[in-house]
């Protein structure tokens, strides 16, 4: 089962939930934690994993053989991302705009374009106290997170539970990380900002046809409108974590909640039971 942990708004507690869920579940299941927030990965701060493998992530970018090139301009014409410009006697390539689709090299009538790999980040994998751990890191100055997210997800095990920590927002990196999940946990806080962004996140997972449930973090701050919304939209609130300085203190020091306050383990195990129930119900519904 794949559970993704997303939020819309940043800083609502995705990392706290993903790490504590993984650490609670490891006692009864094979658990893997994939940190797909490749722009700002933080799970390793809490999990302190021992990495056993590191692989570069590259995308193929075009390289023009100017001996063969006739400057016909076909490559620039077919590039949807304006990553190639053809001048009279020169071809300019902007690798940071290239998505690595391969159209230019395939369609070049002179076969003058080959592809070379350009490194945009790294994926590291290893273990942390019985939990399989994988994360990706986008190189500074690079724009495109999805190829790294895809490579992190290739490590996903087909057995046990896979937990995916997602970046904030609702656009391509979030979709890439969340798609193919069996369930998406949305972590929010009961403020107008939290609610505004939660609504967007709910629309995103609904578009992907993934069932979702809520973790309400910092309960007690803000107002009651988030709970009203969940009730109206029939989205279950699966776990409530109060606003609490002790919890915030452990978080600030990079200590997972269930290690700092082991009494929370029960709540996270219940959370996983509730998720499993929803996922099983849904799969028996579709079988019928």
């Amino acid at each position, binding site marked *: 089962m794949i559970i993704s942990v997303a*939020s819309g708004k940043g800083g609502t507690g995705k990392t706290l939930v993903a790490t504590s869920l993984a650490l609670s579940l490891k006692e009864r299941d094979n658990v893997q934690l994939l940190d797909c927030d490749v722009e700002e990965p933080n799970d390793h701060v809490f999990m302190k994993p021992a990495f056993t493998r590191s692989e570069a992530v590259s995308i193929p970018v075009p390289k023009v053989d100017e001996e063969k090139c006739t400057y016909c301009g076909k490559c620039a014409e077919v590039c949807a991302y304006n990553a190639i410009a053809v001048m009279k006697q020169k071809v300019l390539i902007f690798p940071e705009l290239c998505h690595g689709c391969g159209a230019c090299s395939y369609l070049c009538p002179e076969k003058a374009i080959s592809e070379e790999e350009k490194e945009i980040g790294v994926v590291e994998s290893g273990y942390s106290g019985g939990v399989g751990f994988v994360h990706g890191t986008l190189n500074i100055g690079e724009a495109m997170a999805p190829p790294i997210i895809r490579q992190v997800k290739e490590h996903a095990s087909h057995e046990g539970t896979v937990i995916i920590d997602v970046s904030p927002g609702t656009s391509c990196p979030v979709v890439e990380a969340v798609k193919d999940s069996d369930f998406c946990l949305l972590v929010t806080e009961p403020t107008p900002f939290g609610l505004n962004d939660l609504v967007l996140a709910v629309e995103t997972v609904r578009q992907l046809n993934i069932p979702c449930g809520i973790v309400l973090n910092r309960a007690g701050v803000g107002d009651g409108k988030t709970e009203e919304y969940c009730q109206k939209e029939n989205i279950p609130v699966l776990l409530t974590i109060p606003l609490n300085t002790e919890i915030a203190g452990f978080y600030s020091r990079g200590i997972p909640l269930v290690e700092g306050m082991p009494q929370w383990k029960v709540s996270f195990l219940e959370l996983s039971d509730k998720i499993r129930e929803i996922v099983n119900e849904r799969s028996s519904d579709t079988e019928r």
Partner: protein
Amino acid sequence: MKEVVILSGKGGTGKTSIVGSFAALAQSKVLADCDVDAADLHLLLNPSIKEEIEFWSGEVAVIDDEECTQCGLCQDVCRFDAINDFKVDPISCEGCGFCSHICPVEAITMMESLSGHWFISDTKYGHLVYARLGIAQENSGKLVALVRQRAKQIAEREGLSYIISDGPPGIGCPVISSLSGANLALLVTEPTLSGIHDLERVLGVCYHFGVPALVCINKYDLNEDNTRQIESYCLSQGVEVAAKIPFDNAVTEAIVRGLPVVEYSQGRVSQEIESLWQHITCALDTRANKPNA
């Protein structure tokens, strides 16, 4: 005219609360919300929309079933695994158009899709340009560029001194699009190990694009050891810590009331944000004379 963009790397450190307060404090400015994925600034500024513009972008391949001979070439060349059983998955399709160019029977066309909206609005504090990217859409970087461009046009037309941009979290495409060419970045961090880690990365992006940066430590009193660590890190990098804002529930209370915190409370948080804005105007008027793009 000078542009300051507020970034953080890590989400939820308080960017929007700070920008909302700058909106109330600054004279002669236009506001831009560059977090087009999850825009929140309008919740504090209560804008009336003057103009709503459709954002058409991000083409998606469409296969004409009648023309398709199911030769499978499109599936073979697509590097995004977006075509299966001769159907395009619009969510996986990155709009490169490779398939449409090579289809032997020209059964594939690229259709532009409505990817979002952007808004030019008035608030009691001045003009605000913001956007809403469509659900699960790409090209957030392009939409950010449009928002910034329009904010700049307004500032030029009306002879305004400052553009204040609320940036997105992360360090990828929309962040780069918000940052490149700005005069100054204000990096808002919090005294947690995650906050420190993310600050280092977003500061790296500022270096990479040659934009000078100031740091603000929000909720600094939640962990003063970590705050000292951030201060010594910033010192080692030659980056100034321009403000330390204490934790105060008033910030959330102000959000709930839809107000910038400086309009809601006269406490230390508001005093710190006021002096931070003074600091930024000084930095913009002296240090950051030229855009660095």
